[in-house]
């Protein structure tokens, strides 16, 4: 898993360093996925049952998976989805307005 995460980060940064804006957005998507997988890996991979507690018990029976990490990733995915949708609309509009798919041509607001 660690190698997958590392590979994703590397690919994401490579894509973000390209000039094309579409590839920039692809890079951002990869980056958020890499972060999600990192949470998944860092919080410990266990092959466990769903953490459901029987009525009356205090602890779940047997080994169970950590639900918090999953909740975090789910939230992060939803947020990532929303932001991605926005980014796609943004590059679409930007392409319409500016007419190029090239970061080097977008220097008007730089100093």
């Amino acid at each position: 898993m660690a190698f997958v995460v590392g590979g994703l980060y590397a690919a994401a940064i490579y894509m973000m360093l390209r000039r094309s804006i579409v590839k920039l957005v692809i890079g951002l998507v990869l980056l958020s996925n890499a972060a999600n997988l990192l949470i998944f890996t860092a919080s410990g991979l266990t092959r466990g049952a769903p953490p459901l507690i029987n009525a009356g018990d205090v602890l779940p029976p047997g080994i169970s998976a950590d639900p918090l990490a999953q909740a975090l990733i789910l939230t992060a995915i939803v947020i990532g989805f929303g932001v991605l949708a926005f980014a796609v609309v943004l590059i679409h509009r930007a392409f319409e307005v500016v007419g190029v798919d090239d970061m080097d041509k977008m220097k008007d607001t730089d100093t």
Partner: protein
Amino acid sequence: MNVSVDVLVALPIVLPLLAGALSLVFWRSHAAQRMLGVFGSLGLLVVSVLLLFATWDHGHLVMEMGDWPAPFGIVLVSDMLAAIMVVLTGIIGLATAVYSLSGVSVRHERYGYYPLFHLLLAGVNGAFLTGDIFNLYVWFEVMLVASFALLILGGERAQMEGAIKYVTLNLLSSALFLSAIGLLYGLTGTLNMADIAVKLAEVEDTGLVTVIAMLFMVAFGIKAAAFPFFFWLPASYHTPKVAVSALFAGLLTKVGVYALFRVFTLIFNHDVGYTHEILLWIAMLTMLTGVLGAAAQFEFRRILSFHIVSQIGYMILGLALFTPLAIVGGVFYIMHHIIVKANLFLISGLTYQLKGSHELKQLGGLYRSNPMLAVFFMVPALSLAGLPPLSGFFAKFIIIRAGIEAEAWLAVAVALVVGLLTLYSMVKIWNEVFWKAQPEGVAHAQPASGPLIWMWLPIIGLALMTVMIGLYGQPIFEMAERSAEQLLDTSGYIEAVLGAGYVEALQESRR
């Protein structure tokens, strides 16, 4: 009916959310949205002032959302720093809402200006008040999405270009932030900031802790526009409507600064010699690059944007010195800066309305035509440069004094030089915009129609506030002092969140 005082902690988040939802429901009625904008932010200001008083009395206010006990549930915590920041959000929210009455066109309102405005305020307040690090991430994202959409309202070319840079760098910082949270959770097994602080003290692998600390520093550094990650800010802040610029300038980067203050006092306070040394260098370079960038600019709002960067440096300097007085100075500086900077942006908007340009070369003669505006520009401008008796003087004075006491001579020298250069930029604006005659041959833009009274009100209000902070600084100073005490003595925070005896019980169970 026994409403506990802790409810106040949730209200600064709930009120803007409700106002935003209502303005979505009244999508068709612009009048209703405007009313909601003003009264919603007025209500927010009232609630936040109440919260400030309650926090002053109780020390910490904690609310466990949904009655799930900490450290398992999400907590909202209000200490002095958070309460002060929420009050400032209320002030800026009200000022921009009033300003928007005549500063935002119907076309922008149709794209959803007001719902986004409320969502932004909710996100900012949520980030200030949460006591859970993942929740902090969520609020950051709420704030960011709202700010993205506000940034491109209107859809001009410059806005698109600015937005792409802004979006990219902020998403990058969010991804780093998320990675850092993941590693931190792997290390400590908890997300509650107080609990993390307790458990991180026992972690033996200090190398990994420092790595995580650096990840947080980079992530929040990007949000706060510190050196060397500040490029997105001057590239985007001058592109949207002025009301939006003022809102961003007042609040957004300060959320990053607040997060730095919170994380580097509460959680990463074990290896101060290493992390805060880096912060010190970041602070100095931020101050210098920001002010030098501003000196080279000739566009009203770009100058101001670069000054945001340089002022961020002062705040981080306060954190980096890490003495009680320096933290007081940092907090005081945040308070002064938010009010002054938002006001300067609003003034640039009014200038634009009067003269039809943001370029210094094309402006002029405003002193002759509008002496009042010139006076109200002088107040925040001189305050920004740090001239007595305005608020900026005391803010800079405290920080520099703390620097002298800590014997950080280089930082003191940089801070003084930057103060002088700030004065230079402000005098430049003054000369070009107000003092010199209206340049010949420039097409005189027709003064905008419509009443400008709503633009004047917030400018006058904020300018008066700047003077008041300068003249009657004692209560403000005491508030900053109290918040610095709370920041440096983390046991109060931890005890308030987790309950007394939690730390002892944890150590007991380890044996």
